Each structure stands twice: as structure tokens, then as C-alpha cells.
């Protein structure tokens, strides 16, 4: 009798646990991915439709299913506006039951969506946005910042240029969260290495005519003109600098965030010699080449680090869902943080408690036209920057999730 009772109790317990497990499993019988990116504006070449292609590749590579449930892809154009991104994210969370917000190019949109994720516990996989605030003072438990950030750019390009003798700096800064953050991070690196910031000009975002700002930078007499902006702002600034003879005048340009799409649109004659930091280069080794060729076959372009990062982050996300059998935000992100990241994109990758995916970064120089052997053969990798050196040390983090011993 006693035995029978125990058996019955066990059966009930098992049934209950199984029920709970089923409850924790995939919600709404689908894993829903919502891409929020710039599909038509300034950043649509470095992110945009290419990000959608990368996500589709990731979904195809898991056979369209994760943990036995279909993966559904939604996409929307946030037009680089925080309010549009936030409204869409809220709608997707409430109505469409999206499980993860992906990409978010432009820092202001990323911060806005992270605010919503704080309430609805959805996963945020950021690839496009760059501000180091995302995993520093504004960090949140379900956000993972994948590809790069302003700290790593500053650390890579900033310290390399100062070491080459570029001691005095003048910044052209895009007048919004990302630009200001990038300038701040680079200025800190410059000063820590014994350099000096002579001045800065905040330009409207986006701006088209940079000649006036370039003249101010020339007049400052700084050895280095740091471009704390991105996309078409960077290309237009480089073009104006080229036209006004900045390099011939003995000053050096430092593109603090340069994507391969920018170099492609400028052409090597104008872009040659630029030093830059990137999280990914298609021609780095066999693994990067193999994936990038597949991407190229679909788009006719080589991937930017943002696009490659989206694929990589989604694959890692899918793996975590597969392993936990759940698409619950905190559960999945916990698993993602436990699992090392090692794929074509990330070398020695790991996601820290602040949400930063730390991986090796590359210091590169844009080739001279004569050195480029094939289309898209643009970069010489000068140095691999180990992840722990590239990203903000946890000891200096202001993120409340980081437990200080």
C-alpha cells in the first residue's frame, strides 16, 4: 500500500514537472525573430537588407526549425528613429509574440528597444549599434551585444594611431548618442597614451557637406582628424578631406568606424591608407571566406561585420534554444552566456555577464589600388587584437549585472 502511494506520488510529480517543462518550452509554437534595422536610410548598406539575408541564411542552416518548432522571421525599417523602433518593438512583443529583437543599427534605437526588453524580458541581439553604453551603464539581462562597440574601436584604432605618433587629435563627431560616445571613448584612449585632444566639432546627422568641418579640422593643426561618425557621413567626410588635401597637408585621417561597404563605395584611390578596426573581415581565413562567398552569391556584395554578426548571433541563439528547449528570454540568454562562441565570425568568443560578446578584433589598413588583387580585396590585417584587450575590462564596468569581488 505504502509502495503504491509512493508510486502514485511520483507519477503525479513527474506529470507536474513534465507539464512545467512543456510550459517552459517554445511559446506560441514558433520561434519568432524580429529584425529591426535601417532598410532604406544611411545605414542600409552596412546593415539593412544584407542583415535580412544573413538571418535567412541562419534560419535555412538550421533547417527552418529550432527545438522542433518553426522559426518565423519578421522585419521592419526603424528608419534610425528611436520612437519608431520602440513602437514596433512593443507591438511585436505584445501582438506578434516575437522572441528576439535582432540587429538594431543606430545606438538610439538599440537603447530604446532595450528599455522595452527590460519590461517584456525578450532577447535583444544587437549587431549594428555601436555604443559601449549598451553593455556598460545601460546593460540589461537579456541583451547581448555581438559585433563591436565604441570602446573596442577606440582601443583598436585610437591606440594604434597614437603609437604611430599621432599625438594631437581633432574630432568630427556625429551629433547623437553614438558619435558622442565614440568620441569620448577615443579621447580617453588618446589621453591615456599620452596624446591630446585639441578640439571637436559636432556635425548634424546625417550631413552631406563636410568641407566646412574639414577646414576647421585643418585649422586646428591637429596631427590626426578622428571621424567619430559612420556610414555616408564617414564617406562624405573622407571625400571632402581628400579634396581639401588633408593628407598632403601632413594630417592623418582616422576613420573610427569604417565598414567594408564604405570602402567599397569610396573606392581604393580615395580610401587607401585608412587605419580601421573591424570585428570581421571576409578574407581572413577559409572559414570566413566560405561563409562570405555564400553571402556574396545571394547579394552580390561581401558582408559587413554587422551582417556577419547577425548570422553568428542567431546561430548561437538557436543553439541555446535547442539546448534548453525553451525560448524564454532569461533562460536562453543564460545558456548563451554559458556556451563559448567559436564559429567563422567569432574567435575565442564568450558572452560576459554584462552581455558583451567578447571576441578577437582586427586592426586593418585599407590597401593601395596596386595591392588589391581582386574585387573586394580591400584590407591588410595589421594585428589581431585579443578580445580581452579590445573590450572594456569588467573591473571598470559600471554595469549593475557585474558582480564585483
Amino acid at each position: 500500500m505504502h509502495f503504491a502511494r509512493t508510486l502514485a506520488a511520483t507519477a503525479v510529480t513527474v506529470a507536474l514537472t513534465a507539464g512545467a517543462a512543456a510550459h517552459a518550452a517554445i511559446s506560441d509554437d514558433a520561434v519568432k525573430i524580429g529584425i529591426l534595422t535601417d532598410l532604406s536610410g544611411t545605414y542600409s548598406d552596412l546593415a539593412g537588407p544584407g542583415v535580412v539575408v544573413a538571418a535567412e541564411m541562419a534560419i535555412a542552416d538550421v533547417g527552418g526549425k529550432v527545438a522542433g518548432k518553426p522559426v518565423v522571421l519578421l522585419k521592419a525599417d526603424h528608419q534610425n528613429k528611436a520612437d519608431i523602433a520602440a513602437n514596433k518593438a512593443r507591438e511585436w512583443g505584445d501582438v506578434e509574440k516575437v522572441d528576439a529583437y535582432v540587429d538594431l543599427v543606430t545606438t538610439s534605437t538599440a537603447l530604446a528597444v532595450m528599455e522595452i526588453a527590460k519590461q517584456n524580458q525578450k532577447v535583444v541581439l544587437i549587431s549594428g549599434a555601436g555604443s559601449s553604453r549598451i553593455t556598460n551603464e545601460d546593460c540589461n539581462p537579456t541583451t547581448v551585444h555581438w559585433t563591436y562597440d565604441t570602446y573596442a574601436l577606440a582601443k583598436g584604432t585610437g591606440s594604434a594611431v597614437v603609437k604611430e605618433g599621432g599625438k594631437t587629435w581633432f574630432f568630427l563627431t556625429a551629433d547623437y548618442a553614438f558619435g558622442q560616445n565614440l568620441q569620448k571613448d577615443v579621447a580617453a584612449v588618446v589621453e591615456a597614451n599620452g596624446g591630446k585632444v585639441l578640439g571637436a566639432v559636432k556635425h548634424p546627422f546625417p550631413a552631406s557637406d563636410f568641407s566646412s568641418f574639414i577646414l576647421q579640422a585643418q585649422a586646428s593643426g591637429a596631427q590626426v582628424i578622428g571621424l567619430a561618425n559612420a556610414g555616408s557621413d564617414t564617406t562624405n567626410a573622407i571625400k571632402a578631406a581628400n579634396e581639401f588635401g588633408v593628407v598632403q597637408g601632413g594630417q592623418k585621417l582616422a576613420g573610427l568606424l569604417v565598414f567594408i561597404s564604405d570602402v567599397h563605395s569610396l573606392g581604393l584611390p580615395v580610401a587607401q591608407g585608412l587605419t580601421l578596426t573591424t570585428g570581421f573581415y571576409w578574407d581572413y581565413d577559409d572559414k570566413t571566406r566560405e561563409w562570405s562567398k555564400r553571402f556574396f552569391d545571394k547579394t552580390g556584395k561581401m558582408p559587413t561585420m554587422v551582417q556577419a554578426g547577425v548570422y553568428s548571433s542567431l546561430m548561437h541563439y538557436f543553439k541555446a534554444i535547442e539546448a534548453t528547449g525553451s525560448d524564454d528570454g532569461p533562460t536562453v540568454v543564460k545558456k548563451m552566456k554559458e556556451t563559448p562562441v567559436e564559429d567563422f565570425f567569432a574567435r575565442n568568443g564568450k558572452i560576459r555577464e554584462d552581455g558583451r560578446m567578447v571576441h578577437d578584433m582586427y586592426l586593418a589598413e585599407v590597401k593601395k589600388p596596386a595591392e588589391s588583387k581582386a574585387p573586394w580585396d580591400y584590407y591588410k590585417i595589421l594585428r589581431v587584437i585579443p578580445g580581452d584587450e579590445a573590450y572594456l575590462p569588467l573591473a571598470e564596468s559600471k554595469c549593475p549585472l557585474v558582480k564585483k569581488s
Partner: protein
Amino acid sequence: MDLFNIPLPAILSQLVVGLINGSFYALLSLGLAIIFGLLNIINFAHGAQYMLGAFAAWFGLQYLGINYWVALLVAPLAVGAFGMLLERTMLSRLYREDHLYGLLLTFGLALIIEGLFVQGFGVSGNPYATPEALRGPVNLGFMMLPKYRLWVIVVSVVVCIACWLVIERTKLGAYLRAGTENPRLLQAFGVNVPLMITLTYGFGVALAALAGVLAAPIFQVSPKMGSDLIIVVFAVVVIGGMGSILGSIVTGLGLGVIEGATKVVWPEASNTVIFVIMAIVLLVRPAGLFGKEK
């Protein structure tokens, strides 16, 4: 000698750079003013037509081996012809309707054209090499100005003055002005007014395309280049006075200079200063600086 603690050469060079932007404003607002004067159409597709001019030059160089100098002539003709096609097939149906319909139609056209180009070419754009003869700088004493920029100022001022002379001093111009005042009476005198309207629209569009070709070597040739500019140009037209030829030229150049000065003193405000001026002008002189009250 310093002004606001900024050395004089720096101020002068900023004013020159402002003048270059002003040249583009003047060319574009001139086209808008001519179109508005005769057709009463607020041509919101002007920015897209400017972009088409730049793209036509780029296509020519890339695929047809047409160099810059030929493009300077051919691109405006081609884009102008496209404009005339639009006028005949669509705009001409709207002359009796309210201004608003023309604005909506041209705005829609602009979005479609721009969207198609973004789809086809991406937003980053393509580089267009500065023609050999205009490479390198000129020493102005206080600054090294790229030759090409100087060329832009010269071309734009010459074209603007020529347009103004034609409209104010020739018989053709007299017809145009008469058409603006009273098209029916002019038709009664035996002038083919519909043809004149078509040609005028084509000419206004060609001016936009010419500005586009001039801009190609300076900016990236990209689908968005027009939409960045068009709002400012509309502000210029409003400040100068809708439909005023001289007003649009003078305010175009003047506002370029003011914007240039703002970029030195308070760069963050450089994209709003023109709209602040617009608001003030509208309060004080609702018809614009050079416009006539009707």
C-alpha cells in the same frame, strides 16, 4: 585680425565654402521658382531630379564613356526630357486643381524614383572622379580652395545670371512673364501656351539635373543626395519669395553663406539656422524677401 576669436582667414574660407553650398541652393531654387512661377506647381520632385542628373553623369562615365564635360550638357537634356514626359502625362492634368495636388503628385514621384534607385544601387552611392583639368587646389591667399569648388561657383553664378537676363530682358522672357500673369490672354495673342509650359518645366528640371552633375564629383552619387537637400531648398524659396527669380538666386547664395558661418560659430545649429530664418521672414514678410503680396 580676429572676429569672435576666430582668425580672419578661417572666417573667409568658411564663407567661400558657404558660397559653394549657396551655389547649389541658388541653382535648385531658381529651377523651382521658374516652375512655380509659370505652372503654379510646387515641384517636390526637384531633389529626385537633381539626383537623376548626378546619376545620369555617373551612368555616362561608367557605361557609355561620356566624360564630365559632355555630361554637363547631355545629362540635363536627358533629365529635362524625362521631366517633360512627366509634365505631359501627369502634371498637365492638375493645373486646374489646387496647388496641393501638384505637390502630392511630385512628392509621390520623388519617393518612387528615390526608392527605385535605393533598390538598384544601395544608399552608399558611387564615387565620381573629378575631371582631370579641375583637380588640385587654387591658392586664394587665405585658403587652398579645390579648383573644382571654384568652378562650381563660377558655373552657378553664370547660369543664374543668364537665366535672369533671359527672363527679364528678352522677348521669350516676356512671354514667360505674361504667361505667369495671364495665360489665357497670352494664348489669345497666338502663343502656344501648353508647349511653353512643357518646355518651361523641362528647363526647370534640367537646371536641377545640371546642379546634380556639378555635385557628382563633390558628394557621393547616391539616391539620397536629393532628399537631403530639397527641404533646405524649399526653405530658400520661401525666404526668397515664391516664384521670384532674383529672390531665389540672391537668397540661395546668401543663405549658403549664413549657413557656412553657423558651421563655425555653432555647428550643431547649422541645419536649423535656415529654418529659423524662414520662420522670422514669414512672420515679418509673409510673401518672402523678394515676393510680391497678391
